[in-house]
């Protein structure tokens, strides 16, 4: 470093809840989008996110997987308060946003990295200006903010002297995504939401960025919410995982449990749909047929029943609740996992 004065970071939002308090608690999060039809057409709604609840412990990485239209990105945007929610609570370190925590404080405590590295940077700002922008808004002096920006560029593996004064279009996609990560870190957040942050990158670059994310997590004590459609990446990076289908969480639990003994038929289908890695053991049969249904007016009951090979009449009637499969926090929303649910494959009711 050539500067003599120490680089100041913004003070992170202080840890008020202690170790046991989850950094993020989400209860009953719901977002419906009305769809405009014709004058006399029935009113229809996209149930983008429907009664989603989960929590993220401090220092944990939680993955969200699902196909397009399952509501994973909408969930991220709702958490960041980039759009208003219809219902539900978002509690950051024990504090409810809008009551004991201002939106301004929340944005410092929680930052997001988006999939499109180019669209998420201002093309008229240099990289240094983009990274320094947030800290300046939060009251840091210009010189200090620029020094911080250069420091962070170094942290994400970009030599500040070569990159600070360049514009987003002058660098590659992988480098841009590193800039976006540096910008997210500039406000000293404790939680970073990564929404398909490595999906647009080439495989060899993706591996570099995943290594970087692991280093930064260690160095800054971060907590990640990692959203992706790529099951391999989610398995690699996450401690726990949520599987979403058409706006609902159908399964959640520690990543190994979910992978080794998936409790929901959709999770099983998703895992079986991954291309093989062995030329001698190619996939012989598609696990399920058809496309995911339109999230406008999704199927009643269990939303997966239209594609599920085990569906029975009761599945179309009412939505199964997330039910514990073991004592390690592995839960699935399927009648086959609920003892005494009436599904022919359900386990018998326990007599205890």
């Amino acid at each position, binding site marked *: 470093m050539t500067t003599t004065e120490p680089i100041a970071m913004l003070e992170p939002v202080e840890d008020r809840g202690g170790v046991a308090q989850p950094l993020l608690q989400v209860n009953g999060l719901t977002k419906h989008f009305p769809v405009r039809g014709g004058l006399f057409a029935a009113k229809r709604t996209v149930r983008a996110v429907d009664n989603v609840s989960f929590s993220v412990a401090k220092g944990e990485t939680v993955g969200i997987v699902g196909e*397009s239209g399952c509501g994973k990105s909408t969930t991220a945007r709702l958490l960041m308060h980039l759009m208003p929610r219809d219902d539900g609570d978002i509690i950051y370190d024990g504090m409810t946003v809008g009551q004991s925590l201002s939106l301004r404080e929340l944005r410092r405590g929680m930052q997001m990295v988006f999939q499109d590295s180019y669209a998420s940077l201002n093309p008229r700002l240099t990289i240094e200006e983009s990274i320094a922008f947030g800290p300046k808004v939060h009251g840091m002096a210009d010189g200090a903010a620029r020094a911080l920006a250069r420091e962070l560029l170094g942290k994400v593996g970009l030599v500040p002297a070569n990159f600070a004064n360049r514009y987003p279009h002058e660098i590659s996609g992988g480098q841009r995504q590193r800039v976006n990560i540096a910008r997210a870190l500039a406000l000293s957040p404790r939680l970073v939401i990564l929404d398909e942050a490595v999906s647009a990158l080439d*495989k060899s670059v993706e591996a570099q960025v995943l*290594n970087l994310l692991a280093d930064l997590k260690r160095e800054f004590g971060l907590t990640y919410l990692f959203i992706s459609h790529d099951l391999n*990446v989610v398995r*690699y990076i996450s401690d726990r995982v949520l599987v979403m289908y058409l706006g609902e969480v159908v399964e959640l639990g520690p990543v190994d449990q979910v992978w080794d003994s998936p409790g929901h038929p959709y999770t099983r289908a998703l895992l079986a749909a991954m291309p093989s*890695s062995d030329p001698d053991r190619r996939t012989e049969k598609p696990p399920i047929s058809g*496309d995911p249904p339109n999230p406008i007016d999704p199927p009643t009951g269990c939303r997966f029943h239209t594609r599920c090979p085990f569906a029975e009449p009761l599945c179309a009637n009412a939505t199964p609740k997330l039910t514990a499969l073991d004592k390690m926090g592995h839960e699935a929303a399927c009648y086959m996992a609920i003892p005494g649910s009436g599904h022919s494959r359900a386990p018998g009711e326990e007599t205890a």
Partner: protein
Amino acid sequence: MTKLVEISGLNIRFTGERTVYAVNDLNLSLGDGEVLGLLGESGSGKSVTLRALMRLLPKKRTQISGAVNVMGRDVLAMNDEELSSFRGQTVSMIFQEPALALDPVYTIGAQIAESVVRHEGKSHAEGRARALEMLDIVRIPSAKRRLDAYPHEMSGGMRQRAMIALALACRPKILLADEPTTALDATVQIQILLLLRELQREFGMSVIFVTHDIGVAIEICDRVAVMYAGQIVEQGALRDIVRTPVHPYARGLLASTIQGAKRGARLETIPGTPPSLAEKPNGCSFAPRCAVAQPRCLEQLPPNVEVGPGRAARCVLAEPVHV
């Protein structure tokens, strides 16, 4: 095995605001009934190579040299009329984004029928009958009703099936597939891959399949060619390349795969980024990122070394095998 496609010494350069040496000294062949994968990262020249085979590149801004022979005919020398009968009947293509490749103002049935009428000189009624048959072949449910559907009325997976039906309507000998499953959801991708595998066997056609995803290549290809910076750095049977890659780039690409990596363990990476291609490469394009590069790597293009039966790598360190 007879060769349906023979490409030798292909160079493609885009001119205009910037010059890009997109493909450099590329040699490739495709056998009868073979599925060949072009595997590479973005900008490696795989899609450009595919488009050159059908002469789909913008005429004014593209300079092509070398030889492209398809079933004994010189594609680079064809005039517009010859090209128009060549496309669709001999060679056909499917694209990544069916929503963009299909015409939004015509129904699926009309588009398929049109290509049959144009290429085979059949009547409109025969064209429609073929369209219905094709929609059945690609397993679109209630095909009869779907004939009159517009592309926007179909889901992503159905649209991709419709595009496959359109591409195969005139029974081409060769199908070019440009990342046809990349934009699809996981559970749909595997359905389309298995459908393509089945149709390839049924129709006995040859396929060139462009992808960046090794898993996808494993599901569908017999042989793969790994591309880097506009060159094929290694080609051979899928099994050999997946199990024992020779070229350092192919090795790095396969090692950086995340599948099966242990949580918390560091991933293998290839340091650096691909070159800009603004200049014609004089040496090995991968040398600046290569862990085992030597001074001679930068002096000239490395030779294409035969490292096994039907298998070659462009690396000075590759051990030649005499068979």
